[in-house]
């Protein structure tokens, strides 16, 4: 779309991110999301005061020619300039470079949109992120989100550095080494946490009901088996997909075919803690279970145009009873698959409410090699349910408690087996 204007635009099909895991797969960015339920603890009170003005409703004829006030436009008070002139004459301390000032104004403007996925990334952080995309990278093995300036952990991967260091879901990361996670985009925050395997990163963490604490986490290469499958004792086939990289559907299909060869009574597809990945893989994965030419997803843009995505192959598992396990870490591409299977009545969802990330970002490289990521579209399930901000409610809600985790119990999986064996 923007290419026609000569912008250097990379279209991204962005899904979720894993910090420190294979969140980036060759050239594709896998990124973050918003969790409406996570409350912000770190926001300064004066910043939360709602101005007594109504937000403008955007229309097709949004007057882009009208210079917003910061432009130093022709008329009216120019508050920004007013303020900055005072700063230049009065401020006790060093002033930022012109570039930093510009980045600050962009960050401030983008923050007013209230969308954590629309973010500015300065050239330095952008360079680090490009490096990340070019190969495997190392991190702490945690899934994070950013809401109102607070970076919080959605889930940690078993036996990975974050979990070993005692971090858990709900923890808010306030500081990474010497840098406060304030006025920072999720992309920049993540680039600080990542680093070479074997190096430590010190995190300052806020946890509800406890004093803030610091913890050193040793980064590691996070390899997670993409597909894991087995026959359970009850004659139920189980397959887990950990993310949607460009081999996901192929590997998942062959695992399912092996399971089907053993005549299981039912099948469990585990998408828990699967933060997403490539849009196209989610469509083909849904196609393993749905008839050819079935609607999987509707993508809608600002101007009201929409793109439907449908399956294009014959399914490998069209009829076998199917349960999809989901939790708060099931995001993006996972929600596309789960939502489509739920809407078409093909599977029963068991577990927790899903994450609710269903937006698409455009990655735009600005003229000074900084990057702007802008949310340009949202996803809707075949029955036109919004994924973004809502998440999917499971048909059967089953929670996992900290005691279950400590005792290595999995009540969600147990419930799935029960459902497939009893039909209820």
């Amino acid at each position: 779309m923007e290419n026609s204007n000569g912008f250097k635009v990379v279209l991204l099909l962005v899904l979720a991110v894993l910090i420190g895991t294979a969140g980036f797969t060759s050239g594709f960015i896998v990124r973050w999301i918003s969790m409406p339920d996570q409350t912000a603890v770190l926001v300064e009170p004066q910043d939360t005061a709602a101005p007594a003005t109504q937000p403008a409703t955007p229309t097709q004829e949004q007057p882009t020619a009208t210079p917003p006030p910061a432009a130093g436009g022709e008329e009216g008070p120019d508050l920004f300039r007013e303020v900055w002139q005072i700063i230049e004459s009065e401020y006790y301390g060093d002033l930022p470079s012109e570039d930093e000032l510009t980045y600050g104004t962009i960050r401030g403007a983008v923050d007013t949109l209230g969308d954590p996925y629309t973010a500015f990334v300065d050239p330095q952080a952008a360079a680090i992120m490009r490096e990340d995309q070019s190969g495997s990278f190392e991190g702490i093995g945690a899934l994070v989100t950013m809401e109102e300036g607070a970076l919080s952990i959605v889930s940690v991967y078993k036996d990975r550095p974050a979990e070993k260091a005692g971090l858990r879901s709900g923890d808010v990361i306030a500081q990474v080494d010497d840098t406060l996670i304030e006025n920072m985009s999720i992309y920049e925050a993540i680039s600080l946490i990542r680093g070479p395997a074997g190096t430590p990163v010190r995190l300052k963490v806020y946890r509800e009901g406890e004093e803030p604490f610091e913890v050193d986490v040793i980064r590691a290469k996070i390899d997670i088996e993409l597909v894991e499958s087995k026959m359970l004792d009850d004659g139920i086939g189980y397959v887990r997909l950990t993310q949607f990289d460009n081999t996901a559907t192929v590997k998942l299909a062959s695992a399912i075919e092996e399971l089907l060869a053993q005549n299981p009574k039912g099948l469990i597809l585990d998408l828990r803690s699967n933060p997403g990945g490539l849009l196209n893989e989610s469509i083909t994965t849904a196609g393993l279970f749905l008839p050819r030419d079935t609607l999987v997803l509707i993508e809608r843009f600002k101007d009201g145009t929409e793109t439907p995505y449908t399956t294009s192959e014959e399914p490998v598992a069209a009829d076998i009873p199917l349960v999809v396990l989901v939790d708060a870490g099931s995001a993006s591409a996972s929600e596309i698959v789960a939502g489509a299977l739920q809407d078409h009545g093909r599977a029963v969802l068991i577990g927790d409410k899903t994450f609710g990330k269903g937006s698409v970002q455009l990655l735009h490289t600005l003229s000074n090699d900084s990057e702007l990521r802008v949310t340009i579209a949202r996803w809707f399930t075949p029955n036109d349910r919004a994924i973004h901000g809502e998440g999917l409610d499971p048909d059967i809600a089953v929670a996992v408690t900290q005691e279950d985790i400590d005792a290595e119990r999995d009540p969600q999986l147990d419930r799935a087996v029960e459902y497939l064996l009893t039909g209820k």
Partner: protein
Amino acid sequence: MSRTVRLFLVATVITTALVVAFAAGVAMTYLLMHDRASAASQEHDLGVFWEAWDLVERVFYGDLPDNQRLEWGVIRGALGTLDDPHTSFLEPEPRQREKEALSGRFGGIGAYVTQAEDGRIVLEPMPDLPAERAGVRKGDTLLQVDDLEIGSGMSTEDVIARVRGEIGTVVRLKLLHEGETEPVTVEITREEIPSPTVEWRMLDEPAGTGYIRLTLFSDRTDKELRQALDELKDQGMTQLVLDLRGNGGGLRDSAVDVAGEFLSGGPVLLQVEKGGKEQTFEAGNGGKFKDGKLVVLVDGGTASASEIVAGALQDRGRAVLVGEQTYGKGSVQQVFDLSDGSSVHITYAEWLTPNRRQITGVGLTPDFEAGITDDDRSNGRDPQLDRAIEWLKGN
């Protein structure tokens, strides 16, 4: 008082802002700035800003902010590049609350506003103030303020902002008295409501020991302090505990005046501005309590203007500090009111104690360390005050 936070119609919410807002008490007008601005006329190349924002306007899926919000956002972002948490932007409403707190008075009706556990906004009038005179009763549920219905999502802060206003203007409240079903509407003329920043009493022991707590350094704090000192002296006070715990600061000049009550002239602080210009702020000679024994209680919430007072009294050998390491805010902000009612707080100077100690990020170390636990608090114990009393007894 219930566990619900009780908000005095003043400005309770402001405390956090004040740690940030040790204002110099100078509010420059837009006009003044405007002259300077034209003289300095320097353009910033925000080309990349426009490149970014044009893109957002064209493709962003979601609502765009109006110009004012965008502009405020840009200013916040720009100030964020300074890496100084005390240089900050305040929108008009929080700025109004701050002004009221720092002036020590406001136009209001004289009632406590509380949010009940079921979300209702409940009033309790203060004696002999407009609300009580107009018939507001304790426990009344507030249903409407002028044309604004009180919705479930509203906080006490939102309500307070509507109830307060210019002295002499009228506010109309729709109320439901407790136990009744028909709401009543009352009209109340706002009056000047003082918001005291000083509490005082005589301690039980040792004999002749007074206790004064300052919660904020407003325009009126010194006046209230002088009254407190007079009353305590009338009750035979010869030695004093001055409690600055949890006091996040306020106005610098108020701190100078307060320190002056305990000193006979001499420096209270040295202010260093951009370019090294130095200015000494001295205590006056009319202090009310210049000789008796003095202990100052401090803790991690003792910041800014409080640290000016505690630092001066410590350096000058006038008091001992008891408690915990203080916050460590050694900068001075000036507040600039902007043309649309918002304002910026700008760090324009640093201050040093009379012995030239720089306290930013360090704080003041008490002469006698004493802690207090949550357990102490919930059981009504105050080991820090106990330690102060112990010192007074032993010296």
